[in-house]
């Protein structure tokens, strides 16, 4: 997995509306990447729903939160609507998992990313990264705030 101090690999991925989103477009602001296995698994639902509840507090810290999984934008759109969340969801769909691989979060053999949180600073450097022990274990939002307060 990518580590603090390394440059965050740039990427351009379509969001749930098919609009391209580039990491470099956020330069000067902090970004939190939330890699998760896939849309519509019950566990993912809780993770993103709960992060949504503290999204205003994350935004107050000047941080843009972006979800990323291997799903297609069409799935992301439906998932976003189902959860009632407005966190942008990026489609690491083609080539499959390329961004997750660049961040060292892809699980070969399973075909999706592990739950990984990556905080990127204003200059595009990784400030903090956390990988869940397994895809079934949800990183609590407290970990995000610990990283932001560090």
């Amino acid at each position, binding site marked *: 997995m990518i580590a603090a101090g390394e440059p965050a690999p740039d990427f351009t991925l379509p969001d749930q509306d098919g609009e391209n989103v580039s990491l470099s477009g956020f330069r000067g602001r902090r970004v939190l990447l939330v890699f998760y296995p896939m849309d519509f698994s019950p566990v993912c639902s809780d993770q993103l*729903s*709960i992060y949504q*509840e503290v999204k205003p507090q994350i935004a107050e810290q000047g941080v843009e939160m972006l979800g990323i999984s291997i799903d297609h934008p069409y799935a992301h759109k439906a998932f976003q609507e189902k959860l009632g969340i407005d966190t942008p969801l990026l489609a690491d769909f083609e080539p499959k998992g390329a961004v997750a691989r660049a961040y060292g979060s892809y699980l070969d053999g399973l075909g999706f990313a592990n739950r990984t949180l990556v905080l990127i600073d204003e200059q595009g450097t990784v400030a903090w990264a956390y990988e869940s022990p397994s895809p079934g274990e949800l990183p*609590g939002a*407290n970990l995000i705030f610990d990283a932001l307060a560090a």
Partner: protein
Amino acid sequence: MTPPGSLTSSPVPPGGPEDHLRPGEGGALIVYADLGCPHCSAAWSELAAPPRPLVFRHFPVASKHPRSPALHAAAEAAGLQGAFFEMVDSLYADRGHVDDPHLWERVERLGLDLERFERDRHSGEVAARVRRDFESGIRAGVAGTPAIFDLGGSGE
């Protein structure tokens, strides 16, 4: 602006006088639950059964269950009239009737003062009380409901 440290990691607070405690025997269970969550509803009858004391903490996930904040406020308002667990039991027992008129029917059935209930459930104090529980859950790493902690204390 929220202080940066306000949602950082912190252990589950032990039960205290401000908690909603259903008495029992032995060590208390602390439960972070969402009144709009079907999993919580399914777990509730087992969880709430005696003999162990139970501390209920609010954990409404509004994005997933848009009605949850109103239900938690209703339980809190009923609690101000001494009927917190009666309202919680009733909400979990009948998840298909959780609109405002259904809440008013419950208030009547429980013999509560409707005017006071209406005032309380929309108050800032009640919202803050619910949010306080929610934030303690976030700080403890709660990432799904129901989240159950067995701290071994009495809950009081």
